[in-house]
């Protein structure tokens, strides 16, 4: 009887496992294997090249450039979008007139596809007649070219990501805020605690599980979402706004250098594994679960 249950268990999990192996684990393993082979081209089949692709990777200035960009992008977008999400959640958690409208407008960017968002922002950024320049024009400031300058292209891309992500994270914070029993802050108020103390000592610690969840998502998204780059800058100028995944796409499906693409993917996989491990094991200890 016991044995049959065991068989049933596996039978039930089998469909899910098949898909996970077929579409997640098998490609990941193949990627690692491909990174040790050369790219097959026409009549020239792939040959084993050992670590040659990795050597090329280390000597590839574009790789280091996009990796640095990606780190700045992560550093810039993650704390800001989480902070903004928390701020918005606290703001729309209190009752006030037009609360539903405020909630909806904060959440709208999440509902839009990133490509559509990028097209909207493309209009905002357009030099001369874009929204930003029209507003600046009122104050007598001349045309800007945010996407067309090396120094501002990446921050301009980051602004789009923050705008898109903050609303999504706000929903999680809002749900978590509403799950906090109001008695806690009432009790604290009776003890004479101010609003800031209540937030710092009660609300924020109770939100830690949400912060962990949101920050893992934010980290993954910082490496996973590059759709807007296709629309806004195409990675330019001179790779100033290119990120690792965008470079992987360019290498694999534009230059058709699939084995070097695989090598880059291995780096991305390794990086994400490290970050996930770090977050779960280090950050998790500071999280207070009820």
């Amino acid at each position, binding site marked *: 009887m016991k044995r049959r249950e065991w068989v049933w268990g596996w039978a039930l999990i089998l469909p899910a496992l098949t898909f996970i192996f077929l579409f997640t684990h098998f490609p990941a393993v193949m990627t690692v294997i491909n990174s040790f082979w050369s790219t097959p081209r026409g009549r020239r089949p792939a040959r084993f090249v050992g670590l040659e692709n990795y050597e090329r990777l280390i000597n590839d200035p574009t790789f280091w450039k996009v990796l640095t960009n990606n780190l700045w992008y992560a550093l810039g977008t993650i704390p800001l979008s989480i902070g903004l999400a928390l701020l918005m959640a606290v703001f729309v958690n209190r009752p006030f007139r037009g609360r539903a409208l405020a909630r909806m407008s904060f959440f709208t960017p999440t509902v839009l596809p990133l490509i559509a968002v990028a097209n909207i922002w493309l209009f905002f950024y357009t030099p001369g007649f874009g929204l930003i320049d029209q507003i600046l024009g009122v104050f007598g*400031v*001349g045309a800007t070219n945010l996407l067309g300058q090396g120094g501002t292209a990446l921050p301009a891309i980051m602004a789009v990501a923050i705008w898109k992500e903050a609303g999504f994270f706000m929903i999680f914070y809002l749900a978590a805020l509403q799950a906090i029993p109001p008695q806690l802050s009432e009790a604290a108020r009776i003890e004479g605690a101010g609003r800031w103390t209540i937030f710092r000592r009660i609300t924020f610690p109770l939100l830690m599980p949400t912060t962990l969840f949101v920050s893992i998502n934010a980290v993954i998204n910082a490496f996973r979402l590059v759709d807007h780059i296709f629309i806004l800058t*195409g990675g330019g100028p001179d*790779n100033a706004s290119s990120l690792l995944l965008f470079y992987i796409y360019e290498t694999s*499906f534009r*230059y058709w250098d699939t084995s070097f693409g695989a090598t880059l993917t291995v780096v991305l996989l390794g990086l994400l594994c490290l970050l996930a491990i770090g977050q779960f094991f280090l950050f998790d200890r500071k999280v207070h679960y009820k």
Partner: protein
Amino acid sequence: MLDKFFKGAATAAAFSLATALPAGAVDLQFYFPVAVGGGAANTIEALSNAYMEANPDVKIDPVYSGSYQDTITKVITAARGGNAPQLAVALSVDMFTLLDDDLILPFDDFLETDADMAWVNGFYPAFMENSQVDGKTYGIPFQRSTPVLYWNKEAFKEAGLDPETPPATWDEMVEMGKALTKTDASGNTTQWGVRIPTSGFPYWLFQGLVIENGGTLANAEGTETYFDSAPVIEAAQYLVDLSTKHKVMEPGILDWGATPKDFFEGRSAMVWTTTGNLTNMRNNAPFDFGVAMLPANMQRGAPTGGGNFYLFKGTSDEQLAAAVDFIKWITAPEQAAKWTMATGYVAPRPATWETQTMKDYAAGFPQVLTARDQLEHAKAELSTHENQRVTQILNDALAAAITGQKPVETALKEAQAKADAVLKAYR
């Protein structure tokens, strides 16, 4: 009873088979990109339908496949998966890439009669440069373009210039640009003299400058580039100087897609862009505009651009013969004329311009002739082995120079070294 039933079923099956496949039917899948606004996709569908009406034994399935970039990605993916289309329109410059991947066939195998040879020799030579290699023809020009200079006649008048005379040389473009650049009271520029867009694929318009300066970017075999040669460096310096020294062009990377709008809004009095935008300009410009050849320095010059028909491996001879027949038909004068009027692409055969339809159109809209007349000065678009990667190397170098991150010469020297490293394998 049972016997009768089987007979009936067999007849029904045979009947349905017969209706699905008329005797000798040939199916063709045809991928095509659309790179300009307007009804280009509808025109392709209409032309395919017209062909099928005239040839009921051929069934063409035109598949809109996105931008040029999307199209080449889809074609290569489909071909690698053993499911190549029979024919596709893709960038003429991707010829070497498709050859290196062993995906395309030469048209020569299907050209037997003298009439066939006359057909293939009847295209503008400038368009054939990116279509032939080693004496074989791999591409048939179809949606081909070349960049031209559009100028705002009203802005010229306002600046005290002759509205009927566009700049003929680089120096004139700078001089006129200075007259056309306007600043407001607080020192902000409200109208720039000229705009050469530099986003995405700056190499293309830049190649116009290089040819005008007497230089070349690559050899015909696609194995050598000359990014750090003197004419190329000078051309890049001129492009950078337009913004930094002469201050007649907006600084930074200028978006390709926003260029027509920028022109309509009066923010740039002269713009360089493809002749494929001509119909768009005609429909949307709120002022009188002219179309000129690109200005000369040592000589006139412009690159060609756009897409060719390719034939793909992995299909039956019957299908390939039908595909070639379709290509012959769609590039014939009457069909090509329809295509040119719908988009602004340059009809790729002189014969098209001799048709009454085209003559009437040009009489009412002479701007359409500029691109054609410029063809005698046009050279092949930059095309090498691993074309996408090599052109991106040049794009990055140009972007670095334009945004002032690197001096022009350093950027191009580095680009040449990188291109050499990629192309070494093909020499």
